[in-house]
C-alpha cells in the first residue's frame, strides 16, 4: 500500500516526462495520477486499523552494507504518516488543478515535477529509515526548487536561492547528524535510536524548524511564498511546512527524548515568539499572499508549541492542526491564485468588493478566512484548543500567552477578508467580474468539504492519530498505537 | 670512510631556497625554468647525501630518474616558452594574466 502510494505518482511523473503528450493529455494524465493517489490515500484511510500502530509496512534491503549500518527501504504509516500522506495527496491534486487552471507553460515538465514532488513527499512521510527519509526530503526540495525557480515570479531567482540556502543549512546539518547516528549507534532505523546527544537533536531540529519555519528561521519565507507560482506556494504552506513539524514528531522527540525535554523551552519560547510575531507582521502585510504567508508562519509556530508541550493533548492538537492548517492554507492560497488569475495582483490596494454580487466567491473566501482564523466550532478551533491545552499543561503562562494568538488571528484574517471582499470594487477588479466558475470551484469545494467533515467530526481524525506517551522516557509519543 | 651528510643537506636546503627565491623574484620564464632546475638539483643532492648516509644505492637511482624528469621538464618548458614567444611580444610572466581572478 505504502509502496503503491510512493510509486504511483512517480510512475505517472516518468510517463508524462517521457511520453510526447500534448498539453491536454499531459494535464489529463496528471489529474488522473493525482486523483488516483487521492483514491489510494482514501482507501488507506479507510483500511487503517485504529490503534494498531505502524501499518502497510514494507521493509526491504536498499544498501545492505553501507559501512556503518544497513540502509533499508523501510516504509509504513501510522496515524501521523497516514494523514500526512492523505494531506499530500489532496494537496497535490488541488495544486495541480490550480496549475491547470492557470495554464502553466511547458505543462509536461510542470505536471511531472508536481508528481515527483508528491512521490517524494509521500516517501518522506512514510520512511522509517533515516537515509531513506533524507532522500525523500531532499528530492522534495529539488522538485520545489525547480518549480519555484522556473515557474516563479520575477524575483524567483533570489527567492529560490534564499530558500535553497536556508533549507540546505538545515538539511545538511541533519545529514551530518544522520552520519553520526550511523557511526555511533550502527543503525539508521528510526525506532532503534535513543540518544542523549544534544547537538544531534539540535541538528535535526534545525532542519525541521527551518522548514516549518520556526521563528527566527523564516528568512526564506516571504520571498518564497510571494514569488512562487501559487500552487507551489499553496503546497509550501499546506504540505511542505508540515514536513518540518512531522520531522520533529517523528525524529526529534522519539530519538532524543532527553535533549527534547531539556531544550523544550527554547522551542516553546521561539514558538511563542513566532506565533505572536507572525501574527503581528501578518497584520501589516500589503497583499493577500503576505497575510496568509505570515499567518501560516504563525500557525506553524503554534504547532511547534503543541509539539514541545510534550504531552498528549499538545501533540494530538499539533498533529490535527497540521492536517487542518494544511487544508485551509491550501484553500486560502489557491483561492488567492484564482483571484490573481482574474485580477492580476494580490495587493490589497487594488482589490476589494468581491462580495458585491458574487455570492459564491465571497462565501468561499469567507469560509477560508474563518477556518484560517480558527473560528470557534471549526476543526481548527479544536486543534488549536488542544494545542493550547497542551501548552497550558506545560506552563500556565505559555498557554495563556499563546491563546492571544486567537485574537491576533482574528485581526489579520478579517482584515484579509475585508480587503478582498468588502467595500467597493478595487481598481484592478475588472468591471462586472463574474462569480466563480465551476472549474474554479472544483478546486476549492473539495477542500472546503474536507474542512466541513473535519469540523463535524474532528474525532474521526483524532482517533486515528491516537497519541499516547511511552512509559519511559515520558516524552516519546507513540502515534497510532494504543499500546503504551 | 665516515661522512657527515648534515652539511650536504644544509647546502641542498640553501640551494632549494635559492631556487624558490628565483621563482619568486624573476619574471623571465627562462630564468624561472633555471630556478626550477636548481630546486630539482638540490633535491638530487639531498637524495644522494641520504643515499650515502644510508649506504644504499636507491637514492642515487632515484636521483638518476630525477635527472631524466628534470630534462623532460626543461624540454616541455622551453617548448612552451618558445611557443609563447611566437605569440606574444614580451615574455614577462607577470603579463601572462589573461586568465585570472
Amino acid at each position, binding site marked *: 500500500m505504502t509502496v503503491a502510494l510512493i510509486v504511483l505518482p512517480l510512475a505517472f511523473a516518468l510517463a508524462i516526462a517521457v511520453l510526447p503528450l500534448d498539453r491536454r493529455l499531459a494535464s489529463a494524465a496528471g489529474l488522473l495520477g493525482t486523483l488516483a493517489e487521492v483514491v489510494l490515500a482514501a482507501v488507506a484511510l479507510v483500511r487503517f486499523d485504529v490503534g494498531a500502530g505502524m501499518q502497510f509496512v514494507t521493509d526491504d534491503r*536498499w544498501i545492505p552494507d553501507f559501512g556503518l549500518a544497513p540502509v533499508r527501504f523501510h516504509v509504513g504509516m501510522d496515524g501521523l504518516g497516514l494523514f500526512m500522506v492523505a494531506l499530500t495527496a489532496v494537496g497535490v491534486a488541488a495544486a495541480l488543478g490550480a496549475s491547470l487552471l492557470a495554464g502553466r507553460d511547458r505543462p509536461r515538465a510542470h505536471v511531472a515535477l508536481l508528481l515527483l514532488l508528491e512521490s517524494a513527499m509521500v516517501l518522506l512521510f512514510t520512511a522509517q529509515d533515516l*537515509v531513506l527519509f533524507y532522500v525523500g526530503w531532499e528530492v522534495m526540495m529539488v522538485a520545489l526548487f525547480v518549480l519555484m525557480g522556473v515557474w516563479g515570479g520575477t524575483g524567483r531567482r533570489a527567492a529560490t536561492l534564499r530558500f535553497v540556502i536556508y533549507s540546505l543549512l538545515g538539511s545538511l546539518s541533519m545529514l551530518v547528524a544522520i552520519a553520526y547516528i550511523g557511526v555511533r549507534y550502527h543503525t539508521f532505523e528510526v525506532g532503534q535510536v535513543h540518544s542523549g546527544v544534544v547537538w544531534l537533536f539540535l541538528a535535526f531540529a534545525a532542519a525541521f524548524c527551518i522548514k516549518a519555519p520556526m521563528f527566527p528561521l523564516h528568512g526564506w519565507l516571504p520571498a518564497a511564498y510571494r514569488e512562487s507560482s501559487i500552487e507551489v506556494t499553496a503546497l509550501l504552506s499546506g504540505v511542505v511546512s508540515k514536513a518540518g513539524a512531522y520531522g520533529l514528531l517523528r525524529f526529534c522527540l522519539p530519538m532524543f527524548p532527553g535533549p527534547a525535554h531539556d531544550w523544550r523551552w527554547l522551542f516553546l519560547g521561539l514558538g511563542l515568539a513566532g506565533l505572536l510575531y507572525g501574527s503581528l507582521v501578518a497584520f501589516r502585510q500589503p497583499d493577500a499572499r503576505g497575510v496568509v504567508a505570515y499567518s501560516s508562519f504563525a500557525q506553524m509556530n503554534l504547532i511547534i508549541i503543541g509539539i514541545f508541550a510534550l504531552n498528549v493533548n499538545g501533540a494530538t492538537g499539533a498533529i490535527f492542526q497540521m492536517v487542518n492548517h494544511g487544508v485551509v492554507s491550501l484553500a486560502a492560497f489557491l483561492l488567492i491564485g484564482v483571484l490573481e488569475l482574474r485580477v492580476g495582483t494580490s495587493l490589497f490596494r487594488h482589490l476589494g468588493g468581491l462580495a458585491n454580487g458574487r455570492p459564491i466567491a465571497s462565501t468561499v473566501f469567507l469560509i477560508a478566512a474563518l477556518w484560517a482564523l480558527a473560528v470557534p466550532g471549526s476543526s481548527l478551533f479544536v486543534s488549536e484548543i488542544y494545542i493550547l491545552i497542551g501548552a497550558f499543561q506545560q506552563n500556565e503562562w505559555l498557554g495563556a500567552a499563546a491563546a492571544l494568538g486567537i485574537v491576533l488571528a482574528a485581526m489579520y484574517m478579517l482584515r484579509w477578508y475585508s480587503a478582498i471582499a468588502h467595500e467597493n470594487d478595487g481598481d484592478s477588479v475588472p468591471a462586472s467580474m463574474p462569480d466563480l466558475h465551476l472549474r474554479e470551484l472544483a478546486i476549492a469545494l473539495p477542500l472546503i468539504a474536507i474542512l466541513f467533515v473535519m469540523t463535524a467530526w474532528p474525532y474521526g481524525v483524532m482517533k486515528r492519530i491516537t497519541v499516547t506517551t511511552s512509559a519511559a522516557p515520558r516524552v516519546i509519543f507513540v502515534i497510532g498505537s494504543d499500546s503504551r | 670512510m665516515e661522512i657527515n651528510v648534515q652539511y650536504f643537506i644544509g647546502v641542498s636546503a640553501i640551494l632549494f631556497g635559492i631556487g*624558490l627565491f628565483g621563482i619568486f623574484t624573476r619574471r623571465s*620564464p627562462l630564468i624561472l625554468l633555471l630556478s626550477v632546475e636548481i*630546486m630539482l638539483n638540490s633535491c638530487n643532492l639531498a637524495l644522494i647525501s641520504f643515499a650515502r648516509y644510508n649506504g*644504499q644505492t636507491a637514492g642515487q637511482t*632515484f636521483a638518476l630518474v630525477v635527472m631524466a624528469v628534470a630534462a*623532460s621538464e626543461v624540454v616541455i*618548458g622551453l617548448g612552451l616558452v618558445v611557443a*609563447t614567444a611566437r605569440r606574444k611580444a614580451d615574455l614577462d610572466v607577470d603579463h601572462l594574466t589573461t586568465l585570472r581572478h
Partner: protein
Amino acid sequence: MNVPVNFSAIAPEIVLIVVACVLLAGGVFLPQRLAERLTPILAAGGLLAALVVAAAQYQHAAHWSFDHTLRIDAFGQATRLIVFGSGLLAVCVSWGSSGGIKQRAVEFNALLLTACAGMSLLAVANSFVTLFVALELFSIALYVLVAIDIDSEPSLEGGLKYLIVGSVGAAFILYGAALVYGATGQLEFDRIAAAGGDRHGVLLLAGIAFVIVGLGFKANAAPFHMWTPDAYEGAPTPVTTFMSAATKAVALIVTVRVLSVAFPGQSDVWETGVAAVAVVSFVWGNLAALRQTNVKRMLGYSTVGHTGFLLTAVAANSNLGARALLYYLTVYATMNIGAFAVVAIRERELGRPVEIADFAGWGYRRPLLSISMLLFMLSLAGFPPTGGFIGKLYIFSAAVQNGQTYLAAAGVAATLVGLGYYLKIPFALFDRDAELPAAVPSPGLRLASFATGISAAAVLFLGIVPTPLIDLARTASGSLFG
C-alpha cells in the same frame, strides 16, 4: 639479480603505451583528415582494451610487484577503472574539437593514452621512485595537453603556469621523499612504515609535510591550487574534462596510499594537517567560485572546493574513509565529465568560451542535455537521488567516525556557499524570460551527448542503486585497510 618481474601487473599500462606508440608511429603516415577520424577511435579502443584488461585482472587479493615498487590491489585497480573510464569519455568529448586537438590528433590521443598510463601506474605505485616518475609522466603529458591549442593564448598561458607551479610542486614531493628517505632509509611505502614505526622525528614529519604539499598540488587542494582555475579555463575543454576527473582521482588515491601505508605511525599529525588543508580548500574553492562568470573557471574552483570533501575522506584515515573516497571519486569523475562535456558542446556551438549567461534559455533548446546538466549540478551540490548525495553522506560518516565532525561542519558550510554558484547554471538554463538561443550545429554533438548521457545515467544510477559500487569500494578499501 632476482627481481620478480611481473608484467601482468602493468598489463593495462602496457596496452596503453603500445597503442600510444602505434598511434605515434602510424600517425605520421596518415593524412590529416584520416588521422582526425582514426586516431580517436584507436585511442578509444586502446582505453577500452585497458579497461577490459584492468577489469579482468580485478581481484581482491593484493600482491607486491617489482620488488615492492608496485602494489597491485583492488584499491589501485578500482582507481585504474576510474582513470580509464574518464579517459574514454574524454576521447568521446574530444570528438569534434577544433584547434590543437584536431590538428594534432595523433599527438593528442597518444599523450592522452600515456597520461592514462602514468595515472594508472601512479594508482598502484608503492615506492617514491615509481610515484615520482608516474606523476611526472602524466604531468608532463598534461602540460602539453593543456597547451596543445598552441594558437590560443589562454591555452599556452595555462600550460606554462601549470608547468612552472607544477615543477615547484614536484620539487616539493621530491624533497619530501628525500627527507623521508633520509629519516627511514627506505623508498617503498611499506618498508618506510616498517622502518619509521611511530617515531615522530623532525626529518620524517617535515618530509611528510612536503609530500602532502606536492600531492595536494596535484589534487587541487588550496592553497596549492592556484594554477587550477587558470589551467582549467585555458585548456581545451576535453583536456579539462579529463584533468578534472582523472588527475584528481589518482592524486587523492595516491595520497591515501602514501599517507596510510607509509606513515600510519604518524597519522595523528597528518590527519590534522590534511584536515587543515581540506578546510582551506572548502573555503577558498567555494568562495572564489561564487563570482565567476566563465563556466569552466567556475567549475575549476568548484573542484578545489570538492578537494575539501575528498581530503576529508583522506583525513579520516580509515576503511570507511577510503570507501567514501573511492565512491565519491567515481561519482565526482562522472559528474565532472558530464558537466564539462555539456560545456564543450555549448562551446562548440558558440565558438568561444562559455559564460554562464550563454546558457540562458538553452534548456529549452537542448532539454535533455540541460536536464543532465541540472543533474550534474545537483549531484555536485549533494542532492539525492544523485550519487553526489550518497558520496557526501559517506564522507560525512567517515569524518564523524574519525571524530572530525568539524570537517563535516565545514563541508556543510562549503556546500551552502556552493549552492550559490551551482544553481546559477540551472537558473540560466531554464530561464523562461531568456530568449531562445539560436539552433546552432555543434560538431561532435552525438559523441559528446553520449558522454553526457552516460555520465547522467551513472550519476542517477549511483544515487538510486549505490550497492554495486559500494560493494566494490568496500573490497577495494579492504585491500588497503584490511
